[in-house]
């Protein structure tokens, strides 16, 4: 005889799914962590435009067991037609591209699309980064907006009496045994206005918008900027970013224009460096600001020696000046461009200056790491 369990909303089933689901997600995160390098240049993320979550593909986490070779699966099978099928009837076809799946669902090459929080991803990434030459003394004094209800005073409203603190006073006086509370013992809570120190950083991003910088250069620039800007914002309570586009002239622009503008003239890096110095002098006193700059270019600057000399003269103001040379179509990959040769020869401060060269998305992460790492030990604070 059948029986029915009245639906009470309570189920006689121990809920396990959530814990094991969490554990599975933990394993997925591990896979994501292992593949950070590939994800760093994932277009979904770079172009997420402030969205909190992005979807990335992660391979299905399978468990090992004895199984047949999947290569030989799905070559044949059985099925049912609508009636009157004949040998040789075509049931379906599709153009070849990569995977050998049949139409419909199979687990071969199955990938999850995992939604991840960009912040979480950033945390994993930033574990590997440091702020080079960080100067902890360059801070701003800021009056905190939140006042804290934490101070103790001897006078105050009875409703704000801090009983615990009052009793402590009683005990201190040695009167705890007969518990007589003197007016001297009373302690009241009161508001305190906090001032706190926050660290400051400004980062100058200098993008070459001359004719030779094309679509892939723009993407690689964007990928690097995306993570570095975020990183700086995360580590500094107050970070400001100055966007500068330059060809033969340099202009301070907003973020949108920075990434999308293209002009098409020649290249004169000196213009960008000069503008940087002007802005620094006007807006960012060095005693309270940590200063970073990253310059993106393909390095084809005919007046590069001037630029290099100029930079050498001001290199001490930067915690790190990064030069990123982008050359997607470079046949002589290992040849240095004019600009990077000039920088290398003239700038002697190898700790404040870092140069990287890259040509494809797979190199983005290594570039970032090189820009954001302490290469010389023991230097964290400016002398």
């Amino acid at each position: 005889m059948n029986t029915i369990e009245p639906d009470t909303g309570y189920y006689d089933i121990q809920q396990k799914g959530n814990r094991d689901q969490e554990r599975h997600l933990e394993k997925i995160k591990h896979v994501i962590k292992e593949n950070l390098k590939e994800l760093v240049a994932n277009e979904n993320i770079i172009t997420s435009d402030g969205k909190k979550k992005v979807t990335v593909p992660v391979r299905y986490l399978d468990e090992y067991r004895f199984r047949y070779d999947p290569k030989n699966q799905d070559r044949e099978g059985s099925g049912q037609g609508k009636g009157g099928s004949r040998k040789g009837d075509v049931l379906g076809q599709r153009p070849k591209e990569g995977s050998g799946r049949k139409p419909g669902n199979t687990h071969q090459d199955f990938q999850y699309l995992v939604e991840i929080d960009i912040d979480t991803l950033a945390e994993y990434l930033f574990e590997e980064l440091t702020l080079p030459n960080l100067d902890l003394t360059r801070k701003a004094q800021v009056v905190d907006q939140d006042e804290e209800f934490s101070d103790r005073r001897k006078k105050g409203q009875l409703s704000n009496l801090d009983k615990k603190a009052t009793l402590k006073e009683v005990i201190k006086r040695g009167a705890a045994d007969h518990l007589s509370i003197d007016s001297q013992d009373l302690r009241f809570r009161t508001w305190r206005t906090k001032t706190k120190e926050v660290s400051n950083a400004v980062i100058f991003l200098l993008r070459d918008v001359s004719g030779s910088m094309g679509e892939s250069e723009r993407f690689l620039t964007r990928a690097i900027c995306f993570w570095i800007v975020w990183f700086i914002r995360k580590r500094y309570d107050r970070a400001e970013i100055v966007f500068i586009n330059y060809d033969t002239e340099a202009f301070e622009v907003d973020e949108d224009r920075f990434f999308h503008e293209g002009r098409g003239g020649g290249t004169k890096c000196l213009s960008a460096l000069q503008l940087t110095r002007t802005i620094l002098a006007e807006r960012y006193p060095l005693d309270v600001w940590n200063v970073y700059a990253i310059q993106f270019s393909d390095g084809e600057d005919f007046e590069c020696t001037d630029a290099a000399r100029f930079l050498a003269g001001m290199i001490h103001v930067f915690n790190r000046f990064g030069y990123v040379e982008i050359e997607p179509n470079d046949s002589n990959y290992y040849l240095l461009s004019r600009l990077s040769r000039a920088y290398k020869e003239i700038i002697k401060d190898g700790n404040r200056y870092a140069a990287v060269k890259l040509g494809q998305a797979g190199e983005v992460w290594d570039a970032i790491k090189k820009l954001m790492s302490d290469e010389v030990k023991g230097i964290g604070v400016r002398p």
Partner: protein
Amino acid sequence: MESLAGEIWDAARSLGLSPHPVHFETVPYHVLYEVAAYGLPNHYQHWTFGRNYWVQKTRYEHGEGRIYELVINSDPAYAYILQNNNEVQKTLVMAHVMGHSHVFKCNEYWKDTRKDMPGYMAAASARFATYEQVYGFHAMEELITRGLAVQAHSLDEEHEPVMERRPVENRTPYDELFDLDLALGKRALTDSEKAAREKMEKIRPGAWNRLPRPTGDILGYIVRYSPQLLDYQRDVLSVIRQEGIYFQPYYRTRLLHEGFAVWTHQKILDMLDMSQDERMEAALTHASVTLPSPLGINPYHFGWKMLEMVEKERGSAEVIKIANEETDSSFIRAYLDERMVEELDVYKWIKKDTASHELWEVGEKDWRMVRDYLAESYARPPYPGIEVRREVPGQGSLVLAQVGEEDMDEKYARETLNYCQDLWGHRVELQCRVDSRSKLLWSHMTNH
């Protein structure tokens, strides 16, 4: 609903079914999908079930792969029904469950499975939770991972109706230790045999006596004879093995199970008092689960249609006899005839690669060929057959061998052998087929 359950029970009995009584519970989808992911309620924990749960639940939330019900094979049986089924769907599902419950109770391959599994599993899960506290989360996770890797290779050999035995191939010098004359006492041990036996006794006491014949029960062999397992590990692996044995008949009877359950719900719905609208609603639900598919066999449709055609010719007693006695493979071999192949338009398809396209076409339509192909493919286990052949005297290695000719996945096999070694304590080897060649693999192999 209480009276409905009674009516359905009576209808099932009058049809000639003899199911386990069923305890019905309506649950929200996340509970149903959770039980489905674990296979049993109150199951022990492991991340792979969390993965299954997550994948299935996500599919459901995207409107794919709806599960209407889930029946647990036990006495009484437990059936979980999706809460947001409407009343007619619930009626249909309850009738459907009677068919499953009957197969669980009466089918040759199911009737000897343990019927106390929910209680057994709940008790085991409680022990596992204690072990986890004592030995740690990771120790338990790793142990369960290893057990699950060979869970499919669990057999209750006493109850195994058709365990095919094969002669041991690949003879080694040690094989003569097990020869028949010796076993029957017709000849004495030679000196070298004596030495080998003594050496083996020293390293692995008892190994001598436990190799009467190959066994497909890899997990059972490890649980019984591994010299290094702690008690709690042996317990955990035994539970995993029991579960493997419990689910073992499943792959042989998918078509039969679903076909018979559909046949049953159709019969029972006919007997119930329903309005015209309700019948229409039931017919729609029925139709939605019994759609034939061009590149796969929908067991709800194909199994049900076959049974219906059998019934037309030979009556419902024959249908119940099939549910009691057959597997998918034997059912097809004995009953699928020319008319059925024609009417159900079933065929074998093949995939072809042209220069630019992948192409699926009807490869075989001759009814005998189709019947044989189906019977064979339904008999094929979803994993390669593997046996424990012997232990290597003097080394303690365990020798496994594949039964069958299909290529195995080498990477997976190697990793699984590593797992086996963790449980066994010594090297584990496997003679198998890889890339159409015979190959010897072993645990922690370093070369390629």
